[in-house]
């Protein structure tokens, strides 16, 4: 998952970035409204954390312009003005949830995860497709209630595919959403992850959860329960 953090205070920006990075997100950061707006409209963002009180282009403007540009990823606003007027304004502009400063790390991450789930159409933190259950909070995977050990990147690929179940996800999309900008991107690695996921989740080849579409990408094909 790729998160965009737009916050002008360098310390807070560093903290939030760290929180998401620790959770396995690839994180992009912007310190002001102009950069934030550019990233929000141009980068492959899965979720954006936007501070409302930004210098230059305000948080509200970023949200409004990003939505106008057709970006539909979930947006969580951070506000120090705990007035309802600013919350409502942010939500009306197109944000999906708000968090008032100061906040608990766990609350921020829980809200972010909930928004991501919701954007994929899931209500619960456990994503279940037939025998496969992915717990996005605990970061565990079970198949027929048997736990499966996955590496961090394997988990990210699986989570992304399930959240976009039924859609064709290309290799480049997966790399974009899994790696931070500065990390080395190698789309061949994705093939390796997919192969390993298939052997770990479906060792005897009966489920066939991931379909490979030659030249275009992968698709999660297990129906939701």
């Amino acid at each position: 998952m790729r998160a965009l953090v737009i916050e002008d205070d360098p310390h807070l920006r560093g903290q939030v970035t760290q929180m998401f990075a620790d959770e396995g997100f690839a994180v992009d950061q912007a310190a002001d409204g102009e950069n934030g707006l550019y990233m929000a409209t141009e980068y492959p963002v899965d979720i954006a954390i936007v501070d409302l009180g930004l210098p230059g282009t305000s948080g509200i403007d970023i949200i409004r312009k990003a939505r106008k540009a057709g970006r539909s990823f979930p947006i969580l606003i951070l506000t120090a003005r705990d007035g309802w007027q600013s919350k409502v304004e942010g939500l009306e502009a197109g944000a999906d949830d708000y968090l008032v400063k100061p906040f608990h790390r766990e609350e921020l991450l829980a809200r972010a995860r909930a928004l991501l789930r919701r954007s994929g159409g899931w209500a619960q933190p456990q994503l279940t497709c037939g025998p496969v259950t992915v717990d996005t909070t605990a970061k565990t995977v079970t198949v027929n209630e048997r736990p499966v050990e996955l590496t961090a990147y394997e988990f990210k690929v699986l989570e992304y595919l399930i959240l976009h179940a039924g859609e064709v996800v290309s290799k480049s999309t997966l790399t974009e959403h899994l790696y931070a900008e500065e990390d080395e991107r190698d789309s061949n690695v994705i093939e390796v992850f997919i192969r390993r996921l298939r052997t770990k989740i479906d060792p005897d080849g009966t489920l066939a959860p991931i379909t490979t579409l030659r030249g275009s990408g992968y698709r999660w094909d297990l129906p939701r329960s």
Partner: protein
Amino acid sequence: MTSLRARLLAAASAVLAAFFVLTAAVLDGAFRDSTLQAQRDKLEGLVYSLLAAARTDANGDLTVEPNDISDRRLVQPASGLQAALFDEQARLVWTSAEFLEVPPPQMPGVGQWAFHQLRKPPVFSLSYGLRWIDLQDDPKRYTFVVLEDATSFERQLRTYRRELWLWLAAAAGGLLLVQYLVLRWGLAPVRRLVNELNAVERGERSEIHGSYPDELVSLTQGLNAMIRSERNQQTRYRNALGDLAHSLKTPLAVLFGMSEEPRVPEELRSPLREQVGHMQQITDYQLRKAATAGRRTLAEPIAPAPIAAKITQALTKVYADREVKFELSAPPQFRMRADNGDLFELFGNLLDNACKYGGGRIRIRISRDDQDNVIEVDDDGPGFPEEAQELLQRGVRADTQKPGQGIGLAAVYEIVKAYEGRIVLARSEWGGGRVTVRLPI
């Protein structure tokens, strides 16, 4: 004299009264003088006619030949006209047909006139002194006295006076009425302005709109500017507080983040968390309290329903997982005098609580009774705990699993206090919580 109209009317009445009394006096005097002059002229004419009829008798005394008297009234009794002739010793030498009452003879000098109005009996008397030079060249002094009954003159004067006063009074009354109407018309814009200002105060209007005469335009513009500046003041104040909140809370958030940083040793984290939590509570409470506008005389009337609707839309998004259903009812065109920001806080906190703790069904009813604007929020959750009222007073959290209930209600309580209103926690008909907020009109 507290009313402008009463002052103007009193002043106008006094001026009118003085003017009419003076006019009456002058007219009365002039009429009387001219009538008296006419009377005198008439009597003078009579004296001349008597002189023309005067003859010397056998004794050489002067007498008047009745047949030669041109005015026949002097020859008839009870005609109201009498005449007499006195000699030097004031002896009666000749009288007209009737000369009953003999006033003390007036002896003006030769060729002199003496005109008097006598009260008892009411007559005019004109005396004329003359020296009669006859053929014997023995001049003698005589005095002619002519009397005329004054009753007709008095009657005429009385009639005149009555008419005069009657018409003057009628004119004064008419003028006063016109004056009153003119004042009413002239002061109507002032009355209209007062009504509009009252409407602004009651919250039925946001500004003074009507068109006013030139003299009042600068006043109404000044009032509108004042009303607007008061409202802008509140907005500026709130923005300043927002900036303050922003600059306080971002560092707090950083500190808070540090207190949860796993790399920081636990013995540092725990006191840091505690202190930052404390600071956060204080800033939250004080900023919220400062931002509450409360009752203000010239607050703009606000329609609460659209604000509530905005909040429900926002919360529907935030609580998308719960599929919250809102019902909102308010009388059409309903407006109440309250601060926009206060209403946002009020509905925001009440509805947020109802979303958090309710079962997904929320009803908002806005109404007005004799004294209060009433806002009622029902939910279908577990309802308020026993010590609900205590919850209001302090920010005690009703459910530590879901933080914020206490804080939200405490915020609502602060606002209600600022409006001198009341808040009642009860049970809704669905078994959940019902919050009734009453804000005095």
